[in-house]
Protein backbone atom coordinates (compact mmCIF):
# COMPACT_ATOMS: atom_id res chain seq x y z
CA UNK A 1 0.00 0.00 0.00
CA UNK A 2 1.35 3.36 -1.00
CA UNK A 3 -0.11 5.19 1.96
CA UNK A 4 2.08 7.72 3.66
CA UNK A 5 1.89 7.09 7.35
CA UNK A 6 3.25 10.34 8.71
CA UNK A 7 1.91 9.48 12.16
CA UNK A 8 4.57 6.80 12.38
CA UNK A 9 7.34 9.29 11.90
CA UNK A 10 7.50 10.62 15.43
CA UNK A 11 7.39 7.09 16.74
CA UNK A 12 10.27 6.17 14.47
CA UNK A 13 12.42 8.91 15.92
CA UNK A 14 11.65 7.81 19.46
CA UNK A 15 12.53 4.23 18.60
CA UNK A 16 15.90 5.30 17.32
CA UNK A 17 16.95 6.41 20.76
CA UNK A 18 16.25 3.01 22.30
CA UNK A 19 18.11 -0.06 21.10
CA UNK A 20 16.15 -2.17 18.62
CA UNK A 21 14.70 -5.43 19.85
CA UNK A 22 17.21 -8.12 18.76
CA UNK A 23 14.37 -10.57 18.14
CA UNK A 24 12.67 -8.14 15.75
CA UNK A 25 15.97 -7.45 13.98
CA UNK A 26 16.69 -11.17 13.64
CA UNK A 27 13.20 -11.86 12.26
CA UNK A 28 13.60 -9.00 9.80
CA UNK A 29 17.02 -10.19 8.64
CA UNK A 30 15.66 -13.70 8.15
CA UNK A 31 12.74 -12.46 6.05
CA UNK A 32 15.04 -10.41 3.85
CA UNK A 33 17.55 -13.26 3.52
CA UNK A 34 14.78 -15.54 2.23
CA UNK A 35 13.88 -12.95 -0.42
CA UNK A 36 10.60 -11.88 1.13
CA UNK A 37 9.37 -8.40 0.40
CA UNK A 38 9.14 -5.81 3.17
CA UNK A 39 6.00 -3.65 3.02
CA UNK A 40 5.46 -0.13 4.42
CA UNK A 41 3.78 -1.04 7.68
CA UNK A 42 6.09 -3.94 8.49
CA UNK A 43 8.64 -3.47 11.23
CA UNK A 44 12.06 -2.54 9.87
CA UNK A 45 15.33 -1.35 11.44
CA UNK A 46 15.70 2.43 11.43
CA UNK A 47 18.93 2.17 9.45
CA UNK A 48 17.14 0.19 6.73
CA UNK A 49 14.43 2.84 6.53
CA UNK A 50 17.00 5.64 6.41
CA UNK A 51 19.10 3.95 3.74
CA UNK A 52 16.02 3.36 1.62
CA UNK A 53 14.76 6.92 1.95
CA UNK A 54 18.19 8.17 0.96
CA UNK A 55 18.54 5.82 -2.01
CA UNK A 56 14.98 6.20 -3.29
CA UNK A 57 14.79 9.97 -2.94
CA UNK A 58 18.20 10.29 -4.55
CA UNK A 59 16.91 8.13 -7.37
CA UNK A 60 13.76 10.27 -7.68
CA UNK A 61 15.77 13.51 -7.66
CA UNK A 62 17.96 12.11 -10.45
CA UNK A 63 14.91 11.50 -12.61
CA UNK A 64 13.67 15.04 -12.03
CA UNK A 65 17.01 16.79 -12.54
CA UNK A 66 17.58 14.46 -15.49
CA UNK A 67 14.82 16.26 -17.37
CA UNK A 68 16.94 19.42 -17.56
CA UNK A 69 19.79 18.38 -19.90
CA UNK A 70 17.32 16.80 -22.32
CA UNK A 71 14.70 19.51 -22.00
CA UNK A 72 17.45 21.79 -23.30
CA UNK A 73 17.02 20.25 -26.77
CA UNK A 74 13.24 19.89 -27.08
CA UNK A 75 12.82 23.14 -29.01
CA UNK A 76 15.80 22.34 -31.21
CA UNK A 77 15.08 18.71 -32.07
CA UNK A 78 15.95 18.24 -35.76
CA UNK A 79 12.46 17.17 -36.85
CA UNK A 80 8.93 16.60 -35.59
CA UNK A 81 9.45 12.86 -35.07
CA UNK A 82 12.48 13.46 -32.87
CA UNK A 83 10.69 16.21 -30.99
CA UNK A 84 7.66 14.05 -30.22
CA UNK A 85 9.95 11.25 -29.03
CA UNK A 86 12.05 13.56 -26.85
CA UNK A 87 8.94 15.12 -25.32
CA UNK A 88 7.61 11.66 -24.47
CA UNK A 89 10.95 10.65 -22.98
CA UNK A 90 11.24 13.74 -20.80
CA UNK A 91 7.65 13.22 -19.66
CA UNK A 92 8.59 9.65 -18.74
CA UNK A 93 11.45 10.94 -16.59
CA UNK A 94 8.97 13.11 -14.70
CA UNK A 95 6.77 10.04 -14.29
CA UNK A 96 9.68 7.96 -12.99
CA UNK A 97 10.48 10.66 -10.46
CA UNK A 98 6.85 10.62 -9.33
CA UNK A 99 6.67 6.80 -8.99
CA UNK A 100 9.78 6.92 -6.84
CA UNK A 101 8.71 9.84 -4.65
CA UNK A 102 5.39 8.09 -4.17
CA UNK A 103 7.19 4.88 -3.13
CA UNK A 104 9.59 6.76 -0.83
CA UNK A 105 6.69 8.54 0.86
CA UNK A 106 5.46 5.17 2.15
CA UNK A 107 8.47 5.23 4.49
CA UNK A 108 7.07 8.27 6.30
CA UNK A 109 9.05 11.03 4.62
CA UNK A 110 6.86 13.70 3.02
CA UNK A 111 7.24 14.90 -0.56
CA UNK A 112 7.98 18.41 0.70
CA UNK A 113 10.77 17.15 2.95
CA UNK A 114 12.38 15.41 -0.03
CA UNK A 115 11.99 18.46 -2.27
CA UNK A 116 13.46 20.64 0.45
CA UNK A 117 16.44 18.29 0.82
CA UNK A 118 17.12 18.48 -2.93
CA UNK A 119 16.79 22.25 -3.20
CA UNK A 120 18.94 22.93 -0.14
CA UNK A 121 21.69 20.72 -1.56
CA UNK A 122 21.38 18.23 1.30
CA UNK A 123 20.23 15.41 -0.97
CA UNK A 124 22.32 14.16 -3.88
CA UNK A 125 21.33 13.19 -7.39
CA UNK A 126 23.22 11.33 -10.11
CA UNK A 127 26.44 13.14 -11.05
CA UNK A 128 25.80 12.53 -14.73
CA UNK A 129 23.29 15.38 -14.92
CA UNK A 130 25.89 17.94 -13.97
CA UNK A 131 27.39 17.65 -17.45
CA UNK A 132 26.07 19.92 -20.23
CA UNK A 133 24.30 18.81 -23.43
CA UNK A 134 26.29 20.69 -26.06
CA UNK A 135 25.02 19.16 -29.30
CA UNK A 136 22.06 17.15 -30.59
CA UNK A 137 24.27 14.05 -30.51
CA UNK A 138 24.36 14.38 -26.72
CA UNK A 139 20.65 13.49 -26.69
CA UNK A 140 21.58 10.30 -28.54
CA UNK A 141 24.47 9.57 -26.18
CA UNK A 142 22.32 10.16 -23.09
CA UNK A 143 19.60 7.78 -24.24
CA UNK A 144 22.05 5.11 -25.32
CA UNK A 145 24.66 5.35 -22.54
CA UNK A 146 23.06 7.09 -19.57
CA UNK A 147 19.74 5.28 -19.85
CA UNK A 148 21.66 2.12 -20.72
CA UNK A 149 23.65 2.42 -17.50
CA UNK A 150 20.45 3.24 -15.61
CA UNK A 151 18.81 0.07 -16.93
CA UNK A 152 21.82 -1.95 -15.82
CA UNK A 153 21.46 -0.49 -12.33
CA UNK A 154 17.70 -0.78 -12.22
CA UNK A 155 16.96 -4.25 -13.55
CA UNK A 156 18.28 -5.97 -10.39
CA UNK A 157 16.34 -3.45 -8.27
CA UNK A 158 13.10 -4.98 -9.51
CA UNK A 159 13.85 -7.65 -6.89
CA UNK A 160 14.93 -5.22 -4.21
CA UNK A 161 13.60 -6.11 -0.75
CA UNK A 162 11.31 -3.10 -0.25
CA UNK A 163 8.01 -3.83 -2.02
CA UNK A 164 7.00 -0.32 -3.16
CA UNK A 165 10.51 0.33 -4.50
CA UNK A 166 10.57 -2.98 -6.37
CA UNK A 167 7.15 -2.30 -7.91
CA UNK A 168 8.18 1.20 -9.00
CA UNK A 169 11.28 -0.30 -10.59
CA UNK A 170 9.27 -2.85 -12.56
CA UNK A 171 7.25 -0.03 -14.09
CA UNK A 172 10.33 2.10 -14.75
CA UNK A 173 12.32 -0.69 -16.38
CA UNK A 174 9.44 -1.39 -18.77
CA UNK A 175 9.58 2.22 -19.96
CA UNK A 176 13.35 2.68 -19.90
CA UNK A 177 14.01 0.38 -22.81
CA UNK A 178 12.41 2.82 -25.27
CA UNK A 179 14.71 5.54 -23.93
CA UNK A 180 17.82 3.58 -24.69
CA UNK A 181 16.70 2.48 -28.14
CA UNK A 182 15.70 5.97 -29.28
CA UNK A 183 19.12 7.22 -28.15
CA UNK A 184 20.97 4.50 -30.01
CA UNK A 185 18.87 5.23 -33.08
CA UNK A 186 19.92 8.90 -32.98
CA UNK A 187 23.59 7.83 -32.76
CA UNK A 188 23.13 5.28 -35.51
CA UNK A 189 21.74 7.89 -37.90
CA UNK A 190 24.45 10.42 -37.10
CA UNK A 191 27.20 7.81 -37.42
CA UNK A 192 25.78 6.92 -40.82
CA UNK A 193 25.53 10.57 -41.93
CA UNK A 194 27.96 13.20 -43.19
CA UNK A 195 31.49 13.48 -41.83
CA UNK A 196 30.40 16.36 -39.61
CA UNK A 197 27.52 14.30 -38.22
CA UNK A 198 29.80 11.36 -37.59
CA UNK A 199 32.28 13.61 -35.79
CA UNK A 200 29.44 14.98 -33.69
CA UNK A 201 28.40 11.46 -32.67
CA UNK A 202 31.97 10.48 -31.82
CA UNK A 203 32.47 13.67 -29.83
CA UNK A 204 29.33 12.95 -27.79
CA UNK A 205 30.51 9.40 -27.10
CA UNK A 206 33.91 10.78 -26.04
CA UNK A 207 32.34 13.14 -23.54
CA UNK A 208 29.65 10.81 -22.12
CA UNK A 209 31.53 7.51 -21.92
CA UNK A 210 33.46 8.10 -18.70
CA UNK A 211 30.67 9.93 -16.84
CA UNK A 212 28.43 6.97 -17.75
CA UNK A 213 30.89 4.52 -16.16
CA UNK A 214 30.88 6.74 -13.05
CA UNK A 215 27.12 6.22 -12.77
CA UNK A 216 27.73 2.83 -11.17
CA UNK A 217 29.35 4.55 -8.20
CA UNK A 218 32.79 4.23 -6.62
CA UNK A 219 34.84 1.01 -6.94
CA UNK A 220 33.78 -1.81 -4.60
CA UNK A 221 36.71 -1.36 -2.21
CA UNK A 222 35.68 2.27 -1.74
CA UNK A 223 31.96 1.72 -1.43
CA UNK A 224 31.38 1.36 2.33
CA UNK A 225 27.59 0.91 2.11
CA UNK A 226 27.61 -1.87 -0.45
CA UNK A 227 27.97 -4.80 1.96
CA UNK A 228 25.13 -3.74 4.24
CA UNK A 229 22.90 -2.85 1.28
CA UNK A 230 23.55 -6.20 -0.37
CA UNK A 231 22.74 -8.03 2.85
CA UNK A 232 19.47 -6.13 3.08
CA UNK A 233 18.77 -6.84 -0.61
CA UNK A 234 18.46 -3.12 -1.25
CA UNK A 235 21.23 -3.60 -3.72
CA UNK A 236 21.68 -6.85 -5.63
CA UNK A 237 25.00 -6.46 -7.47
CA UNK A 238 28.19 -4.55 -6.66
CA UNK A 239 29.18 -1.37 -8.49
CA UNK A 240 32.12 -3.01 -10.25
CA UNK A 241 30.06 -6.01 -11.38
CA UNK A 242 27.49 -3.75 -13.00
CA UNK A 243 30.14 -1.49 -14.55
CA UNK A 244 31.84 -4.50 -16.15
CA UNK A 245 28.53 -5.76 -17.49
CA UNK A 246 27.79 -2.36 -19.00
CA UNK A 247 31.18 -2.16 -20.74
CA UNK A 248 30.82 -5.69 -22.12
CA UNK A 249 27.39 -4.95 -23.56
CA UNK A 250 28.07 -1.44 -24.85
CA UNK A 251 31.42 -1.78 -26.62
CA UNK A 252 30.04 -4.03 -29.40
CA UNK A 253 27.12 -1.60 -29.84
CA UNK A 254 29.61 1.23 -30.48
CA UNK A 255 31.62 -0.91 -32.88
CA UNK A 256 28.49 -1.87 -34.80
CA UNK A 257 27.88 1.75 -35.78
CA UNK A 258 31.53 2.57 -36.40
CA UNK A 259 32.17 4.62 -33.26
CA UNK A 260 35.21 4.25 -31.02
CA UNK A 261 35.03 3.98 -27.25
CA UNK A 262 37.49 6.60 -25.89
CA UNK A 263 39.66 4.23 -23.85
CA UNK A 264 43.10 3.16 -25.11
CA UNK A 265 43.31 0.46 -22.42
CA UNK A 266 40.14 -1.21 -23.68
CA UNK A 267 40.92 -4.76 -24.77
CA UNK A 268 39.01 -8.04 -24.89
CA UNK A 269 40.28 -10.46 -22.28
CA UNK A 270 39.75 -13.94 -23.67
CA UNK A 271 40.46 -15.62 -20.35
CA UNK A 272 37.91 -13.62 -18.39
CA UNK A 273 35.47 -13.49 -21.27
CA UNK A 274 35.15 -9.76 -20.61
CA UNK A 275 36.72 -6.44 -21.54
CA UNK A 276 39.63 -5.00 -19.60
CA UNK A 277 39.25 -1.25 -19.46
CA UNK A 278 40.98 1.87 -18.15
CA UNK A 279 40.63 3.46 -14.76
CA UNK A 280 37.80 5.95 -14.21
CA UNK A 281 38.97 9.38 -13.07
CA UNK A 282 37.62 9.11 -9.54
CA UNK A 283 38.82 12.54 -8.56
CA UNK A 284 36.53 14.01 -11.16
CA UNK A 285 33.71 11.82 -9.84
CA UNK A 286 34.13 12.99 -6.23
CA UNK A 287 34.40 16.61 -7.37
CA UNK A 288 31.12 16.30 -9.29
CA UNK A 289 29.45 14.59 -6.30
CA UNK A 290 30.47 17.61 -4.24
CA UNK A 291 28.68 19.83 -6.73
CA UNK A 292 31.59 20.90 -8.87
CA UNK A 293 30.15 19.55 -12.12
CA UNK A 294 30.25 21.90 -15.12
CA UNK A 295 26.58 22.86 -14.80
CA UNK A 296 25.75 21.83 -11.21
CA UNK A 297 24.81 25.36 -10.16
CA UNK A 298 22.66 25.89 -13.23
CA UNK A 299 20.77 22.65 -12.53
CA UNK A 300 19.94 23.63 -8.95
CA UNK A 301 19.02 27.16 -9.95
CA UNK A 302 16.56 25.74 -12.47
CA UNK A 303 14.96 23.48 -9.85
CA UNK A 304 14.74 26.26 -7.25
CA UNK A 305 13.22 28.63 -9.81
CA UNK A 306 10.61 26.04 -10.83
CA UNK A 307 9.71 25.43 -7.18
CA UNK A 308 9.47 29.12 -6.29
CA UNK A 309 7.66 30.16 -9.47
CA UNK A 310 5.15 27.37 -8.91
CA UNK A 311 4.36 28.32 -5.34
CA UNK A 312 1.40 30.58 -6.16
CA UNK A 313 -0.10 27.84 -8.34
CA UNK A 314 0.19 25.27 -5.56
CA UNK A 315 -1.29 27.70 -3.03
CA UNK A 316 -4.11 28.85 -5.31
CA UNK A 317 -5.15 25.29 -6.16
CA UNK A 318 -5.11 24.31 -2.50
CA UNK A 319 -7.15 27.32 -1.36
CA UNK A 320 -9.61 26.87 -4.24
CA UNK A 321 -10.11 23.22 -3.30
CA UNK A 322 -10.63 24.14 0.35
CA UNK A 323 -13.21 26.80 -0.58
CA UNK A 324 -15.11 24.43 -2.84
CA UNK A 325 -15.10 21.73 -0.18
CA UNK A 326 -16.42 24.22 2.38
CA UNK A 327 -19.14 25.47 -0.02
CA UNK A 328 -20.19 21.90 -0.76
CA UNK A 329 -20.40 21.14 2.93
CA UNK A 330 -22.51 24.28 3.53
CA UNK A 331 -24.92 23.30 0.77
CA UNK A 332 -25.54 19.84 2.22
Amino acid at each position, binding site marked *: *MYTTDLSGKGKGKAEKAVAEDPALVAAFEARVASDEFIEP*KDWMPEAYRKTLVRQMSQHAHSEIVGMLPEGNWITRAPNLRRKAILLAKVQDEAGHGLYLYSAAETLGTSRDEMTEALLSGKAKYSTIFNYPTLTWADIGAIGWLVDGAAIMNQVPLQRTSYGPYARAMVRICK*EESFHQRQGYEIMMHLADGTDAQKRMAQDALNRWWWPSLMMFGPPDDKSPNTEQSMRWRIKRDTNDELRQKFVDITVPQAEAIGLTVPDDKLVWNEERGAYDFGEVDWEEFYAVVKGEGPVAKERMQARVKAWEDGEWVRDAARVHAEKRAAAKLAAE
Partner: protein
Amino acid sequence: MSDASKEWPLWEVFVRGKGGLSHRHVGSVHAADAKMALEHARDTYTRRMEGVSLWVLPSAQITSSDPGDAGALFEPAEDKVYRHPTFYKIPDGITHI
Protein backbone atom coordinates in the same frame (compact mmCIF):
# COMPACT_ATOMS: atom_id res chain seq x y z
CA MET B 1 -6.98 21.22 6.23
CA SER B 2 -3.97 21.34 8.52
CA ASP B 3 -1.75 24.38 8.60
CA ALA B 4 1.29 22.25 9.29
CA SER B 5 1.69 21.23 5.66
CA LYS B 6 0.98 23.16 2.53
CA GLU B 7 1.31 19.95 0.59
CA TRP B 8 -1.57 18.88 -1.59
CA PRO B 9 -3.17 15.80 -0.08
CA LEU B 10 -2.12 12.33 -1.17
CA TRP B 11 -4.47 10.16 -3.26
CA GLU B 12 -4.18 6.45 -3.97
CA VAL B 13 -4.57 5.50 -7.62
CA PHE B 14 -6.29 2.37 -8.98
CA VAL B 15 -6.33 1.44 -12.66
CA ARG B 16 -8.61 -0.98 -14.53
CA GLY B 17 -6.31 -2.51 -17.14
CA LYS B 18 -9.15 -3.44 -19.47
CA GLY B 19 -12.82 -4.27 -19.39
CA GLY B 20 -13.43 -7.39 -17.33
CA LEU B 21 -10.58 -6.79 -14.87
CA SER B 22 -10.90 -5.18 -11.47
CA HIS B 23 -9.17 -1.92 -10.57
CA ARG B 24 -5.66 -2.48 -9.22
CA HIS B 25 -3.58 -0.25 -6.99
CA VAL B 26 -0.65 1.31 -8.86
CA GLY B 27 0.66 4.13 -6.68
CA SER B 28 -0.25 7.56 -5.47
CA VAL B 29 -0.34 11.22 -6.53
CA HIS B 30 -0.59 14.56 -4.78
CA ALA B 31 -3.49 16.77 -5.85
CA ALA B 32 -5.57 19.63 -4.46
CA ASP B 33 -8.88 17.91 -5.21
CA ALA B 34 -10.39 14.77 -6.72
CA LYS B 35 -10.60 16.16 -10.25
CA MET B 36 -6.93 17.11 -10.24
CA ALA B 37 -6.05 13.76 -8.71
CA LEU B 38 -7.68 12.03 -11.69
CA GLU B 39 -5.75 14.24 -14.11
CA HIS B 40 -2.45 13.56 -12.37
CA ALA B 41 -3.20 9.85 -12.16
CA ARG B 42 -3.91 9.82 -15.89
CA ASP B 43 -0.60 11.57 -16.72
CA THR B 44 1.46 9.58 -14.26
CA TYR B 45 0.10 6.04 -14.55
CA THR B 46 -1.51 5.63 -17.99
CA ARG B 47 0.95 7.00 -20.56
CA ARG B 48 1.05 3.67 -22.39
CA MET B 49 -2.54 2.47 -22.55
CA GLU B 50 -2.26 0.84 -19.13
CA GLY B 51 -5.88 1.40 -18.39
CA VAL B 52 -9.46 2.16 -19.41
CA SER B 53 -10.68 3.48 -16.06
CA LEU B 54 -9.24 5.18 -12.98
CA TRP B 55 -10.17 5.40 -9.32
CA VAL B 56 -8.60 7.85 -6.91
CA LEU B 57 -9.31 8.14 -3.23
CA PRO B 58 -7.76 10.14 -0.41
CA SER B 59 -4.99 8.06 1.17
CA ALA B 60 -6.13 9.20 4.58
CA GLN B 61 -9.46 7.38 4.00
CA ILE B 62 -7.86 3.95 3.82
CA THR B 63 -8.07 1.71 6.85
CA SER B 64 -5.60 -1.14 6.69
CA SER B 65 -4.93 -4.14 8.87
CA ASP B 66 -1.90 -4.10 11.14
CA PRO B 67 0.93 -6.44 10.05
CA GLY B 68 1.21 -7.42 13.73
CA ASP B 69 -2.30 -8.89 13.52
CA ALA B 70 -1.51 -10.90 10.39
CA GLY B 71 -1.13 -14.11 12.38
CA ALA B 72 -4.41 -13.79 14.24
CA LEU B 73 -6.24 -12.71 11.09
CA PHE B 74 -4.90 -15.05 8.45
CA GLU B 75 -3.34 -18.09 10.08
CA PRO B 76 -6.60 -19.71 11.24
CA ALA B 77 -7.31 -20.42 7.57
CA GLU B 78 -4.26 -22.69 7.46
CA ASP B 79 -5.87 -25.54 9.42
CA LYS B 80 -9.09 -25.43 7.46
CA VAL B 81 -7.82 -27.48 4.58
CA TYR B 82 -11.27 -29.01 4.14
CA ARG B 83 -12.23 -25.74 2.43
CA HIS B 84 -10.20 -26.84 -0.61
CA PRO B 85 -11.42 -29.42 -3.12
CA THR B 86 -8.10 -31.31 -2.98
CA PHE B 87 -8.90 -32.32 0.61
CA TYR B 88 -11.41 -34.88 -0.63
CA LYS B 89 -10.26 -38.24 -2.02
CA ILE B 90 -12.43 -39.27 -4.94
CA PRO B 91 -11.87 -42.70 -6.57
CA ASP B 92 -10.12 -42.64 -9.98
CA GLY B 93 -13.14 -43.81 -11.97
CA ILE B 94 -15.34 -40.92 -10.93
CA THR B 95 -15.30 -38.01 -13.41
CA HIS B 96 -16.78 -34.53 -13.74
CA ILE B 97 -16.37 -33.74 -10.03
